[in-house]
């Protein structure tokens, strides 16, 4: 088996207690290793907070990256807008030129 190029890891941190509640932070990281050199890239981001109640019930609160979502939505809108502009304003092909 070869060495993995991309490693994904989801891990929980130290619990934080407040009142009767206990919070478990959860993060996900992606690690990309460069085969020819030491080093690479690590992208680490929070994914959720698990809240444990006094009766032991657990509820996961997702941590949403609003900036990233807005960026993706805006860039997709830009690509769609560019394509629509091209479709709406494109000139019909000249049949006479085609015959030549």
């Amino acid at each position: 088996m070869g060495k993995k190029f991309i490693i994904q890891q989801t891990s929980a941190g130290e619990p934080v207690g407040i009142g009767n509640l206990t919070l478990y932070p959860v993060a996900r990281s992606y690690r990309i290793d460069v085969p020819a050199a030491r080093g690479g890239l690590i992208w680490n981001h929070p994914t959720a907070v698990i809240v444990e109640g006094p009766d032991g019930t657990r509820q996961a609160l997702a941590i949403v990256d609003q900036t990233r979502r807005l960026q993706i939505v805006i860039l997709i809108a830009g690509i769609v807008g560019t394509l629509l502009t091209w479709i709406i304003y494109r000139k019909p092909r000249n049949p006479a030129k085609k015959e030549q």
Partner: protein
Amino acid sequence: MEKIVKGPGNADFVNLHQTLDDINSTMESFLEAASVDKVFGKPVDVGEMKIIPTSENLVIMGFGAGGGYGSADFEKEEKDSDPGEGTGEGVGGGGGGGGRILSRPVAIVIASPEGVRVEPVADRTKVIMAAITAAGFVAGMFLRMTRGPKSI
């Protein structure tokens, strides 16, 4: 006859090993970037509430190191005008690296005895930059499609 001996000094080995140790310790720090503690900050007590800041981290790092060792024997030849003979050894090495850390706040976790809520943090600058980029694409295509033919 005096022998010419040029061997690897201890200082050369120490420097090479120190470079490798530095790279290993920096690599360990690099791998720590994947831990949970790096994206969840220390809880801040505000009255009965605890506020936990969260952030996204992107760490890019690269290293390289190398070394070499060589030795050679020199023997006197009759026709050689150099009367010296002996052995020579040498060692050399070096390393280098670079990296960058990008960090951005993502959300704030507000915990109180009554409950927990997550407040997202929107980076207006990044959103505005994305909007300008998208608008630039559309405007560029509009101008390209509506302008007349080029005159020579």
